[in-house]
């Protein structure tokens, strides 16, 4: 009912990442919490796939599961056809927290650490690769600085460089810009898109900001909260276009879809 603009798509090749009917539950001290209920979606090569929803929709938990940090209680997740069984360097995380960098290593060694720990590269090759990606995020001058001397935005750029240097099958970003100030966040979003234009990596991006989802994503999965369930998937061109048929902006449409329940409660609008 929602994904009605899908008809132009050519016959789909096999998706890179297949999430199929995934239910995720975790235990707190007193409760068993269902974070997502039977969520399915496919991520294709070079997608900028956004998981969007209000807090409590299980989008971060979903990303953790794709990262291999928790196993689904129901359903399956496959990367390039192989089931996801645990954390691995083919799916690299960029976290929201600034402390994801190792404080005892310089910028360059943080990036090299990733390559060497995963046994992907070592020595000179790792250094060359690290510097290549540090240059890509414009931190060449800071290669020998320790993380505590960098600003929040610079730390996130290092984390992105470290993740991209691994050349993973899919990059997992968990609200990577949420802890930044608004101006820096805007700049980082543009930089991320520029990097994507450069290397066409595949990224799974979690956010709760509709404008960020519209800007960053080419495909947006909408999730409802408590527990997380799929409300639909939309395409985005990045510039928040006005739909000629309805005359509403994409971001307003998303807002309506995500918060439609509240409207229904008040007005009992018939479905259609």
């Amino acid at each position, binding site marked *: 009912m929602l994904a009605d603009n899908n008809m132009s798509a050519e016959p789909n090749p096999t998706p890179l990442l297949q999430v199929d009917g995934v239910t995720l539950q975790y235990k707190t001290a007193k409760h068993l919490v269902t974070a997502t209920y039977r969520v399915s979606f496919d991520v294709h090569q070079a997608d900028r796939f956004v998981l969007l929803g209000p807090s409590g929709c299980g989008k971060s938990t979903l990303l953790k599961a794709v990262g291999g*940090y928790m196993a689904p209680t129901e359903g399956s997740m496959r990367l390039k056809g192989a089931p996801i069984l645990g*954390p691995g360097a083919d799916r690299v*995380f960029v*976290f929201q927290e600034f402390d994801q960098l*190792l404080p*005892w290593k310089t910028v360059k060694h943080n990036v090299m650490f990733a390559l060497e720990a995963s046994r992907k590269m070592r020595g000179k090759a790792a250094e060359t690769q690290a510097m290549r990606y540090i240059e890509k995020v414009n931190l060449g001058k800071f290669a020998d600085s320790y993380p505590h001397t960098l600003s929040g935005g610079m730390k996130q750029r290092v984390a992105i460089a470290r993740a991209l240097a691994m050349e993973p099958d899919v990059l997992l970003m968990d609200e990577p810009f949420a802890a930044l100030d608004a101006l820096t966040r805007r700049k980082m979003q543009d930089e991320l898109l520029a990097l994507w234009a450069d290397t066409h990596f595949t990224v799974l991006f979690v956010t709760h900001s509709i404008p960020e989802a519209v800007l960053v994503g080419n495909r947006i999965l909408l999730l409802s909260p408590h527990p997380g369930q799929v409300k639909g998937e939309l395409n985005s061109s990045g510039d928040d276009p006005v739909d000629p048929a309805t005359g509403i902006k994409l971001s307003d449409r998303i807002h309506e879809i995500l918060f439609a329940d509240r409207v229904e409660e008040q007005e009992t609008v018939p479905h259609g």
Partner: protein
Amino acid sequence: MASMREGAGSAFALPPTRTEYLREVVAGQDIGVVQAPLTPWQRLANQGWLRKGLLLVAIAAAWEIYARRLNNPLLVPTFSSTLAAFADGFRGAEIPEKVLNSVALLLKGYAAGLVLATIFTSLAMMTRLGNDLLETLTSAFNPLPAIALLPLALIWFGLGDISIVFVLVHSVLWAVALNAHSGFRSVSNTLRMVGRNYGLKGPRLIFKILIPAAFPAILTGLKIGWAFAWRTLIAAELVFGVSSGRGGLGWYIYEHKNMLDIPAVFAGLFTVILIGLLVENLVFRNIEAATVRKWGMQS
């Protein structure tokens, strides 16, 4: 302004209307240096060693004056006679020899304690049972003064180095293990996830992520362990000093007390303090500067 507000006469005072303006800023390089050098006096006052040195000189002077007034070398010898006894001890090579004996023994005990602490904390990190074991043992043994085990150690291992190493291990092990363990547990979950993301697990995760991340706490443990060991050693040597004919600093103090050579007793204590200061300021201070301070994990 005040009259305007009063003139409005209502609860809603509006701000005045002002003209907007835009202006060019001066380019950074056109602004001269905006900092002035410190005066020599300010620079001297910034030197920690100078301030602390001056304090020490003041304390020594107070000591000298008090001891001269008291004029009872059996109770409090003067600072100068203590220095003389200290110099004497060095000239006769007695103090260096005792220091060497003490430090050699201390290092043995310290190293053995560290090895055991590593084993215990690794076990505690890897298994839940190991965790329970470490928690139970530290809560049981940490409050127990190591020196209280010396009589038992003497019965078990006889009058020798082994007895002293045994109590040294006891004094080091729990302090280091306790600090390292709490350090490991406070490593942020994000860092652990980063480590696992790049394929680290088991011992590699411990050595590449957990130990460096917990290093501030580990270093604190090492310092506390060192101080405990040093105290325990001197106390143990005071209780029973000679092992196979060569005593340490504690024994030196004890011997000279028996001979009523009080300046030498003071010289012995002085040496104990001096070594403590040297280790703190040369060894640990430098380790800190090269690690946790450089990494911004401690200011």
